[in-house]
């Protein structure tokens, strides 16, 4: 890998080592990191029947949506700010603020002119402000009432709306942008932030992803028949990664944000370090070798995992746990096979492999952000959360069944956890999280 030589001292130089000092999450099964950890440990589902999906005659009528967000927003943001914040902005802003405060940083005053030139944000989204487009822009435009749209629609539908919003809330002066790579978006954001800090271009980067809860976002997936239409009567059982009865994914929503920081800065300000982001990689399968717009090229997936490990300077046998992409579609068996090949593990030797999506569904552009928060919690606290709803392991995964945690596993020696996200467009992102050691 060409990146290895370029960053030959990245594992020892404190200005190039990247650590996680802040976490924030808004998820279907919990708001805030403390309750999210409890939810993960218990295997708490956040999936519910959605009236909007029933009314629109979806085949799948279950989704994961955060609750209590408006109350949290009223406690955290001014009325003036909230008038221009759609759901995507609200989820992202709450998660970013939590990560900021969790890192021990001070929230800047709105009337201060001090800009933090050393901190930036890469906060991604998959489909963005679709709720605003569907409920405001299209109806008012079609009705010839463009004037009544007011001033706030552009900033809510522009792709970079969430990173732009948060840069204002936290006075960020480094690179502020929004990435978008379908379901690998959130994971990709962390790789990009890590690279920026390693390059010496930023000291801290808020990274992650957000996705609104809107049946307008989910409709196209239902039309593709990739959502599970067989479990509408049991919402909490509807997301079934790794199982024979998987039947498709369940859409989720929310936001997950981490604060990445150079080790040098974290040590200098005495910050609490959750874990180290030792390495990562993004690539694309080129829609070849079995890959397509909607299916991953297994060779590219394996190259992405192996490349992330090489970037981290970690051997495949050192991996202690996997938080997979694992959406509960027909791609799960192929993904597990790719993990086994990339980590060079025979059946029975694969480390514990778990799927956060069993609890929260597939949060699309937010998935990598929320699941990275889950991954960091597992590494820093030494556990692997249960992979719920796979009592009936898929026959093609049966040989690795012992590696699937049906209940929470305490792993006090958990050192290295690998997280991956794959997306439409045949794009991949892989992250290597490691227990922090000085």
């Amino acid at each position, binding site marked *: 890998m060409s990146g290895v030589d370029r960053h030959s001292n990245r594992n020892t130089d404190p200005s190039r080592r990247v650590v996680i000092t802040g976490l924030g999450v808004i998820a279907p099964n919990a708001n805030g990191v403390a309750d999210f950890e409890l939810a993960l440990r218990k295997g708490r589902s956040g999936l519910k029947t959605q009236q909007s999906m029933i009314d629109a005659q979806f085949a799948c009528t279950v989704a994961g949506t955060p609750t209590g967000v408006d109350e949290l927003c009223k406690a955290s943001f*001014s*009325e*003036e700010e909230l*008038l221009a914040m759609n759901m995507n902005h609200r989820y992202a802003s709450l998660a970013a603020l939590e990560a900021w405060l969790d890192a021990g940083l001070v929230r800047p005053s*709105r*009337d201060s002119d001090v800009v933090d030139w050393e901190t930036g944000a890469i906060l991604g989204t998959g489909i963005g402000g679709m709720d605003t487009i569907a409920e405001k822009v299209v109806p008012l435009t079609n009705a010839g009432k463009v*004037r*009544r749209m*007011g*001033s*706030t629609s552009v900033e809510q539908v522009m792709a970079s709306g969430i990173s732009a919003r948060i840069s204002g809330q936290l006075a960020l002066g480094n690179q502020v942008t929004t990435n978008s790579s379908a379901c690998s978006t959130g994971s990709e954001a962390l790789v990009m932030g890590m690279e920026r800090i390693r390059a010496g271009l930023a000291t801290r980067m808020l990274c992650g992803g957000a996705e609104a809860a809107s049946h307008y976002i989910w409709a196209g997936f239902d039309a593709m028949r990739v959502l599970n239409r067989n479990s509408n009567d049991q919402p909490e059982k509807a997301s079934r990664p790794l199982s024979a009865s998987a039947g498709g994914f369940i859409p989720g929503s929310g936001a997950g944000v981490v604060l990445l920081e150079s080790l040098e800065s974290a040590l200098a300000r005495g910050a609490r370090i959750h874990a180290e982001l030792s390495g990562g990689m993004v690539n694309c399968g080129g829609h070849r070798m079995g890959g397509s717009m909607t299916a991953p090229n297994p060779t590219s997936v394996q190259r992405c995992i192996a490349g992330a490990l090489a970037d981290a300077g970690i051997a495949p046998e050192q991996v202690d746990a996997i938080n997979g992409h694992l959406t509960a579609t027909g791609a799960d068996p192929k993904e597990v096979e790719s993990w086994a090949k990339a980590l060079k593990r025979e059946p029975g030797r694969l480390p514990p492999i778990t799927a956060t999506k069993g609890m929260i569904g597939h949060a699309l552009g937010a998935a990598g952000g929320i699941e990275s928060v889950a991954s960091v919690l597992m590494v820093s606290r030494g556990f692997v959360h249960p992979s719920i709803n796979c009592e009936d392991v898929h026959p093609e995964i049966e040989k690795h069944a012992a590696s699937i945690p049906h209940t929470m596993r305490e792993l006090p020696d958990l050192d290295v956890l690998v997280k991956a996200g794959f997306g439409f467009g045949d794009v991949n992102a892989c992250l290597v999280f490691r227990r922090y050691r000085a």
Partner: protein
Amino acid sequence: MDRAEVMDRVVKILTPWVKDEAALAKVSMETNILEDLKVNSARLVDVVIAFEDDFDIEIADEDVDQVNTVGDAVNLIAGKL
């Protein structure tokens, strides 16, 4: 509707957009909407839509250009009632 009542309703409509709450506490007809209340200038179009809805009137864009103070807004609206 007398001007005092129009003034009360104008201030109520402006309130969510105001960034300087201290200035709002001592609001008068002479208070400048952008400079004193620190309303974001881009949000004036939202304020005008709210005026139109609340008072059931129409406000032309060229009229909006003449509004600087709370008193300007009150007089413009009162003239249309």
